[in-house]
């Protein structure tokens, strides 16, 4: 019953490449905006001024506490009800919803990263005459980055797949492509296989990029040792033969 020819027909078609590109750039832009937003929300959350910290708490509470799908629909259908001028286009709506949502998660991750840096670092920086912002930028955040990056990579991996939610408002990303192109010919399952391959391709490549970034951030370079000593299969599967010496 599986129509293999449909998979062959679509796997390298322009439509799926276009859809994959949309998925990719939406994820990248939303993640970048989310990281920036998350940093500021985390700093607000840790602020000693109750106004700032409670705004941040409320923000995190709302965006972590409600489903992303609902947030997207609220922006898409809810905003124009409040004011007809707040009619966001599909791309803007998705970017806003995704980056606001991601900002809430990144805020908690960033807060954990900052908290992992010993308070002595900040005290020492201040005793050298640095202001809070300078000490945060030059002393604390770079050290926190090591802790933040692994979960951040996880978040981006998630983001690549979460973009499928954008299909509900008709944005032409991968999942939407599968639904639309599968409809006239019954080939929805075949097209879902096609898009799954694309999602896997993107997350696999990201896995390598993340390993490289973590390697660069690690003073002991343990990841690099692993990359050199283990074969591809043993890295992917967690078991298997060692790579040939001298590779």
């Amino acid at each position, binding site marked *: 019953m599986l129509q293999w020819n449909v998979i062959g027909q*679509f796997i390298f078609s*322009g*439509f799926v490449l*276009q859809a994959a*590109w*949309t998925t990719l*750039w939406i994820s*990248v*832009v939303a993640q*970048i905006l989310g990281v*920036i937003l998350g940093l500021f929300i985390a700093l607000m959350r840790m602020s000693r001024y109750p106004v700032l910290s409670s705004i941040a708490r409320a923000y995190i509470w709302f965006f972590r506490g409600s489903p992303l799908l609902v947030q997207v*629909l609220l922006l*898409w*259908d809810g905003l*124009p*009800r409040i004011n*007809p001028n707040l*009619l966001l*286009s*599909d*791309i*803007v709506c998705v970017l806003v919803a995704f980056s606001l949502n991601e900002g809430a998660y990144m805020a908690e991750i960033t807060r954990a990263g900052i908290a992992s840096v010993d308070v002595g*670092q900040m005290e*020492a*920086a201040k005793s*050298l005459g640095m202001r809070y912002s300078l000490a945060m*930028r*030059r*002393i604390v*955040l*770079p*050290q926190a*980055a*090591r802790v933040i990056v692994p979960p951040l990579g996880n978040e981006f991996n998630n983001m690549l797949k979460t973009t499928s939610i954008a299909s*509900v*408002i*008709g*944005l*032409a990303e991968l999942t*939407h492509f599968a*639904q*639309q*192109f*599968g*409809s*006239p*010919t*019954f080939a*929805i*399952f075949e097209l879902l296989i096609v898009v799954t391959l694309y999602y896997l391709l993107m997350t696999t490549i990201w896995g390598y990029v993340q390993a490289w970034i973590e390697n*660069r*951030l*690690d*003073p002991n*370079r343990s990841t690099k040792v692993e990359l050199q000593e283990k074969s591809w299969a043993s890295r992917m599967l967690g078991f298997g033969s060692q790579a040939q010496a001298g590779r």
Partner: protein
Amino acid sequence: MDVVQVSLMGEVLSTFLVDVLYVCYTTYVHTLDVSFTEEVPFMVSFSHPDRRRHPRLYTLFVGVLVGLSVLMAACGSSNSTSTTSTGSSSSTKPTIAAPKDLITPGTLTVGSDTTYPPQEFIDTTTGKATGFDVDLITAIAQQIGLTADVKTANFTTIVDDLRAKRYDVVISAQTITPDREKQVDFIPYFNAGQSLLVPKGNPKGLKTVTDLCGKNVGVQDGTTELDTLNAANKADCKSNPIKLTSLSAQTDVIQLLVNNRVDATFQDSPVTDYYLKLNPGHFEVGGSIINAAPEGISIRKGDTSMFNAIQAGFKAVKANGTYDNLFKKWGLNPVQKIS
């Protein structure tokens, strides 16, 4: 979303990204220093956040981000599935007064849930919307001197989307119901009924809605079929309710039947006929068409000039034979014509 909007957005975003870049970059360089100079205390290595120390990396980073934004702006316009249908050329000049207050001047922006063949679906070779409804609205738009631009919409939110002015009109096999008429105005264009699609041989003998009591049935969200089934669950099937699986795309509903998750699916008669024709030997129609009711092109309440223009355009399309030709083209039962 038009090109101007997208390129503007791309511009704003790229400016923003470049602004943000320096902050990211300095953090990045610091972390590089950590790994390059392990013995150097943090304080020393971080006291020189200087872009001049890694000029090439900086340029590369800026380049990639700017390039990404430009690409975004370039590709954005083709991101939403939309069709600019020019249709067959007509030599006659439009005589109907063009509607005021269009979203894009010169274009009739149409919303349609393109997962509903043969009325509206995506042509998998061109990637554009096609089907009876799409051809019809294209012909009507031509009569009033406009170009139809059919945008993919989600059926569950399509009425809200029209009211929020995402589209000028909606043509999406919407059956005219009193509830919907409270929200929007309709111009009837098609007389569809509801029918059951069942596996070949109709093993459970499903012919009417009451036969469905206690059975698993697939149906699309927000449809009149769902209303019919819900009404049956409150009346005839009260003691033995129909087990409903309602999904947001008709495609997925049919898939339920393909995978034997449901005993029958319930949808508009042309859709049933289309799937039957597409996969002969797998399915058949259970019983006959019931609840025949007109489907309408929906228009925002108060948009009088649009209503009049579309109505006049529809009359013209019927008068010049295009309407009849489209029934033949899509192999639709002529019983379903609006007289």
